């Protein structure tokens, strides 16, 4: 049993491995540490990637269970199952968990697994920090979930924690909320630093910038967004903390502060944050579509530049979340047009994916099915986003279910579908076995149908004026809400198929796969054996 080393450099890991196992290419399994402590002490990028992905999946199910409570309460008008205060806690914690506990850790897990394999590096640049950045996460979410059991309940002010809801009108569990967000922020910042250093310093010889796979590119840009805005979020929660407990007046008008300023600071973080949750998805789709269209990606360079422009624009559009706060018209115009401008680079991406498929020899394996669903459904979410960007109509849509429909299309059928596509695409490489294709197709079709039953009618009830974050609604919304809830329950149950499939795959059931797995796949990760050995690219490959 190998003990993890004290050094943080990858050279040491390789040296240890070579010393202990000279014939390491044949007998990888023998020196993988066994038992629980392997996972606690690991500095291996693949182990940490696996930990992140399982953690994200568990959080996805926990946050999903909260969504089920929300949909059960909204199945009928009136109050049936939960009290408004608990309902508010469910909407708040559902949002926090899905954003910080499911989507972001899942992308970080994919980054850990894939970036070293894609750029020909033996591990992440800072493996010990990598271990830390994962292992503080469960504590953050234990604190957040634990606060639900405090007297008066957990956070109930929405995941956006607007002041004064989170300062004057919140209960004492707000302190726990603030600390858990601090820990989540530190974790993502450490993860981002690791990604940046790895990509800058550890690319294999010949892996020039413009040869990097798009997943690596999009993650690099995402990592820069993370280190730029997660500290601002940390500042915002700190101000809430001191306003609430230490008598400062950042957001209290009586003391000279300004509650609207909270929204500016929050959304200065919040808007780049939504791109943090979608840029890696663009990278994943840009890996999958060329594989199953059997053509190189159309417009590689334009994809890179489009990603960078989306990231830059994301810093100057934040106030479109707050059109109704009484901004002057010229500022509303600025934020409206800046927001609409983002649809240009996003459109470049969508058209590039379509052009990649154009006259390709397309096949429809499960990852491709999810990728295609992503392209169509994410575009629907993008178009409703364009509608929301139009200031005058936003006054009608603001805080209605139309907004809920919009961001669930971009986050569930966007980010989550891309993560599922990624899992189906790379899972055979990770386990060395083909997953259960029948189950996977059931998962795809059940998810596809139910997710649209769930989120599409939200557009209609939103346009008709149903407000978000309220446990009750007017009678005329009853029929649509029953459909939405049925879709919600079906989507929730469909994810149990996915759970069963992933457990099967992790137990190494299924047909062994070849090294390349998919015949159209290109990239360094497909050159190594399946399953991917515990250590890869100890000798850097040469990229031509």
């Amino acid at each position, binding site marked *: 049993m190998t003990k993890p080393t004290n050094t943080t450099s990858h050279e040491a890991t390789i040296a240890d491995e070579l010393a202990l196992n000279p014939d390491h290419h044949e007998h990888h399994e023998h020196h993988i540490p066994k038992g629980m402590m392997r996972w606690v002490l690991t500095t291996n990028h693949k182990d940490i990637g696996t930990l992140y992905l399982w953690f994200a999946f568990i959080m996805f199910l926990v946050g999903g269970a909260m969504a089920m409570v929300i949909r059960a309460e909204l199945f009928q008008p009136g109050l049936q199952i939960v009290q408004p205060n608990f309902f508010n806690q469910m909407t708040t914690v559902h949002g926090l968990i899905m954003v910080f506990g499911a989507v972001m850790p899942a992308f970080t897990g994919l980054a850990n697994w894939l970036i070293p394999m894609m750029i020909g590096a033996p591990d992440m640049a800072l493996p010990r920090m990598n271990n830390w950045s994962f292992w503080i996460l469960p504590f953050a979410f234990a604190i957040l979930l634990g606060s639900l059991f405090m007297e008066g309940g957990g956070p109930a002010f929405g995941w956006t924690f607007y002041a004064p809801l989170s300062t004057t009108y919140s209960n004492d569990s707000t302190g726990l909320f603030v600390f858990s967000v601090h820990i989540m922020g530190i974790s993502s910042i450490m993860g981002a*630093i690791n990604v940046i250093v790895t990509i800058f*310093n550890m690319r294999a010889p010949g892996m020039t910038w413009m040869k990097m796979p798009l997943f690596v590119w999009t993650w690099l840009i995402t990592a820069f967004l993370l*280190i730029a805005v*997660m500290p601002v979020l940390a500042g915002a929660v700190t101000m809430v903390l001191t306003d609430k407990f230490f*008598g400062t007046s950042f957001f209290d*008008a009586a003391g000279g502060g*300004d509650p609207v*300023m909270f929204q500016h600071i929050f959304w200065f*973080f919040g808007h780049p944050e939504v791109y943090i949750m979608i840029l890696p998805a663009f990278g994943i789709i840009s890996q999958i579509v060329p594989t199953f269209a059997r053509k190189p990606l159309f417009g590689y360079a334009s994809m890179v530049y489009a990603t960078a422009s989306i990231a830059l624009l994301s810093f100057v559009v934040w106030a479109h979340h707050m059109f109704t706060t009484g*901004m002057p018209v010229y500022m509303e115009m600025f934020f409206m047009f800046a927001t609409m401008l983002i649809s240009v680079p996003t459109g470049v991406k969508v058209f590039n994916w379509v052009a990649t498929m154009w006259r390709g020899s397309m096949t429809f394996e499960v990852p491709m099915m999810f990728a295609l669903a992503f392209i169509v459904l994410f575009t629907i979410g993008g178009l409703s986003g364009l509608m929301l960007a139009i200031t005058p109509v936003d006054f009608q849509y603001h805080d209605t279910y139309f907004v809920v429909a919009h961001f669930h299309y971009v986050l569930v059928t966007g980010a989550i579908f891309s993560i599922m596509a990624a899992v189906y695409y790379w899972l055979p490489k990770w386990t060395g076995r083909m997953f259960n294709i029948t189950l996977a197709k059931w998962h795809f079709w059940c998810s596809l149908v139910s997710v649209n039953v769930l989120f599409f009618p939200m557009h209609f009830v939103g346009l008709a004026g149903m407000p978000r974050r309220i446990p009750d609604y007017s009678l005329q919304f009853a029929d649509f809400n029953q459909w939405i809830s049925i879709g919600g329950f079906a989507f929730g149950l469909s994810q149990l198929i996915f759970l069963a499939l992933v457990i099967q795959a992790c137990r190494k059931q299924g047909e062994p796969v070849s090294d390349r797995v998919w015949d159209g796949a290109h990239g360094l990760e497909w050159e190594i054996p399946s399953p991917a050995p515990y250590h890869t690219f100890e000798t850097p490959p040469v990229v031509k």
Partner: protein
Amino acid sequence: MSGRASNQNMVIRLVVIVVGMFGFGFALVPLYDVFCDVAGINGKTATTAAVYQPNQIDKSRLITVEFLTRTNTGMPWEFQARTKRLKVHPGELTTVEFYVRNPMRTNYIAQAIPSVSPGEAAIFLNKTECFCFNQQPLAAGDEAVMPMSFYVDPQIPADISYFTVQYTLYDVTARADTLDTKDNPYLKRTSATP
């Protein structure tokens, strides 16, 4: 290759960015005020008295000014504008009065915070005297009539013909510097206290 050294260099640089951005989050607080001040877009009025310059009255225009009052949650005072709405010529000095009463059995100290909407009008509202410039103490049961004198800057854009001034009264008793309730210049003693 000096892999570890260059990793360390990079980590240091990235940590500097992180710390800098954390500081930037806090720097947004003063920056926000400065920006709103310069652009005059936040509906906030000046916190010190303006000096009235007569003979600039623009008789050709009439601006409607509306006064709203509200008390913040947990603030038990009565608070009313004696004048709900009036029309003024730009440049004309006008005084309006606000009535407050502390119906409680304890002394309170209040702070009024004005907000103008549309926000662009705020920098054209010049107050030569306002109860909002100071904290207002009232003993139990006391009432007061508080004046506010203002003129509208004749430079006010032509498209603003109507604006609203809202005063929100906050209870600042807990955090106020101790003010003697007898110091209140606007006091109208009607309570039991002689």
